[in-house]
């Protein structure tokens, strides 16, 4: 399975997304692509020194649990917004989006220009007032304030388990990749990256994670940009690339522009390599999965909650949208260049498996090895490490907060001093990382269990956005409605997945496990999108019906600041026009629309 299926916007929801990547070091396709020199190691060491140094410099500012978990709500908008991007920019995104660019071409941009960006605008303009204004310290805590204890518990526990496994699985993937490419020891890679991330979060808490995410953001951009520039120069710019992608498309039996256009071939699932049609893509990916991830996942929302004011919190995802919009250039384009060069050079760039299919997961690493000499190669590799660490730190800081506030303080030891919870935060950081390491090793031994876990997470997450949408915009939504609506959505996802299957797969983890197969999808991605659509719709309808027949436990007074109609409007008028969230949102959406049209 392709790493691309693990794009964060999808990772938590894509049914069956897994990392059973064909990267076994002993497999015949194993090739040591990269040889590093002293200068490359030097750059890596400088980077390690700085990330730990930042944690060290910040350690004396951590005095309360709020400092540790929420940066004392003191982060300026621009810093929070870069961290907002970085935390989600794991190694899977860099490797996976490149792989996806090679396998599907320009259509991969939908993950950004249809998926992430509109959702980021929505969370900034509409949802942040409730998250930040309610003074909730986490997303599960918002659910507790808005609904009830059981809804919070359900979300907190599934989220905590999920973050640990997400970071474990990505740790596994990175270590495997480094072992394969450079010949580094799998154990050493895991241990070193775990210790470094542990060190800087333990010392400086969320502030340290956020500061490092800003550093990592610049490193990722400046580390991958030369690769893109060299690749583009080599293929003759965008025009040259488009031309070189024609044989890629026609060889696969599609129209000439299938790899270089984003919308043209979405009229039917048979005419594009992704196997999706416009409705499944726009609804499944654009609406359900992306809004679900960007608007409700505490990993990203936490960065905005740490902002130093309501306006800064709302501007965080909006400012983040500007660079995010350009990220396809950085992460998708290398994959597209890789497949173009591969095909036009007679299939020599990428390692090809026994079945004649190139290993798409190696698109970005192969590009690094192909174009970058010693020196910049070290920088590119450091950027890859940086993306991995920022993603892992994002998971760990979200985990320790949810564990400490929503599980430990709520169910295990309530009513302790703040010092006690701060200490628990430190313990949770160590335990969270230890569990991630365990999960990484578990992945090497029980691939199926991991696949199954990811599938379960996908079922739990797909309906979540319906709950938030109703909770925030319909005051009549009750706690029972939210909780049982979520359960209904989760079960609906499971049933849909169990009754359908992607073409060419065997019944089991890929679907069809309930016996009769009612529908065969052209691709796994199409199946994932539709599972999400079913889950969301079932949750939405069930929540409404159950809310109508149950009585509301919370009064209007209690819901003030948590529900749209009961919350005073934000006084945006006094801000300069370019600082108003609504204006920024319109500008972002306009630019995104333009990008969609240009690359139609």
């Amino acid at each position: 399975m392709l790493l691309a299926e693990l794009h964060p916007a999808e990772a938590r929801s894509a049914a069956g997304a897994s990392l059973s990547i064909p990267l076994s070091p002993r497999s015949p396709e194993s090739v040591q692509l990269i040889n590093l020199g002293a200068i490359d190691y030097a750059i890596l060491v400088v980077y390690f020194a700085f990330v730990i140094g930042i944690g060290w410099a910040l350690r004396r500012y951590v005095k309360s649990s709020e400092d540790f978990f929420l940066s004392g709500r003191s982060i300026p908008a621009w810093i929070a917004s870069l961290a907002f991007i970085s935390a989600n920019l794991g190694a899977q995104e860099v490797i996976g989006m490149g792989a996806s660019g090679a396998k599907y071409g320009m259509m991969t941009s939908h993950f950004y220009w249809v998926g992430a960006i509109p959702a980021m605008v929505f969370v900034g303009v509409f949802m942040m007032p409730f998250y930040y204004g309610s003074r909730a310290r986490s997303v599960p805590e918002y659910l507790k304030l808005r609904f009830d204890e059981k809804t919070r518990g359900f979300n907190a526990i599934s989220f905590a388990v999920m973050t640990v496994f997400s970071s474990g699985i990505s740790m596994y993937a990175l270590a495997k990749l480094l072992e394969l490419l450079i010949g580094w020891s799998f154990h050493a890679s895991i241990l070193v990256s775990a210790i470094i991330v542990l060190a800087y979060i333990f010392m400086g808490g969320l502030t340290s994670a956020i500061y490092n995410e800003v550093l990592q953001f610049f490193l990722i951009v400046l580390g991958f940009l030369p690769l893109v520039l060299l690749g583009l120069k080599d293929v003759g710019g965008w025009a040259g690339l488009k031309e070189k992608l024609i044989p890629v498309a026609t060889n696969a039996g599609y129209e000439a522009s299938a790899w270089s256009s984003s919308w043209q071939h979405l009229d039917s699932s048979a005419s594009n390599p992704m196997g999706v049609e416009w409705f499944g893509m726009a609804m499944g990916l654009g609406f359900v999965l992306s809004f679900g991830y960007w608007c409700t996942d505490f990993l990203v929302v936490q960065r905005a909650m740490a902002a130093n004011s309501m306006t800064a919190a709302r501007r965080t995802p909006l400012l983040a949208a500007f660079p995010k919009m350009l990220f396809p250039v950085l992460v998708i384009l290398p994959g597209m260049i890789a497949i173009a060069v591969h095909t036009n050079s007679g299939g020599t760039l990428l390692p090809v498996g026994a079945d004649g299919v190139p290993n798409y997961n190696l698109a970005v690493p192969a590009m690094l090895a192909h174009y970058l000499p010693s020196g910049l190669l070290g920088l590119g590799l450091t950027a890859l490490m940086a993306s991995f660490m920022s993603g892992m730190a994002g998971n760990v800081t979200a985990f320790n907060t949810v564990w400490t506030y929503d599980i430990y303080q709520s169910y295990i030891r309530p009513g302790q001093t703040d010092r006690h919870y701060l200490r628990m935060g430190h313990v949770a950081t160590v335990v969270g990382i230890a569990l991630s390491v365990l999960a990484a090793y578990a992945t090497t031994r029980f691939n199926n269990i991991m696949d199954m876990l990811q599938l379960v997470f996908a079922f739990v997450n797909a309906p979540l956005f319906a709950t938030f949408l109703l909770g925030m915009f319909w005051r009549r939504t009750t706690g029972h409605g939210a909780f049982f609506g979520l359960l209904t959505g989760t079960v609906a996802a499971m049933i849909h997945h169990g009754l359908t299957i992607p073409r060419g797969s065997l019944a089991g983890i890929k679907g069809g496990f309930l016996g009769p197969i009612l529908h065969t999808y052209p691709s796994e991605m199409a199946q994932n999108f539709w599972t999400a659509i079913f889950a969301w719709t079932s949750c939405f309808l069930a929540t409404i019906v159950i809310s109508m027949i149950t009585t509301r436990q919370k009064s209007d007074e209690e819901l003030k600041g948590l529900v749209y109609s009961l919350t005073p409007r934000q006084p945006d008028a006094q801000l300069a026009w370019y600082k108003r969230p609504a204006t920024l949102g319109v500008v972002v959406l306009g630019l995104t629309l333009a990008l969609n049209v240009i690359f139609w």
Partner: protein
Amino acid sequence: MNLDVRLPIGLMFTIIGVALTGFGLVSDRAIYERSLGINVNLWWGLVLLAFGVSMLALATRAERRRRAVPENTTE
């Protein structure tokens, strides 16, 4: 916050920029065959150096302003 994040970022990119530029000057030309004959270490090293130095400049300017203005007037 108490630590200006631009300081470590500027410092790190300055160091890496100097290292890459230096390596670009002394390295064997043959290794640039794969980068289309361009000495990318030299040029990109200079880009990183410029970025690092401007980050440092922004951080020091902000620091100077903070000193010049009494407490609690920063934004």
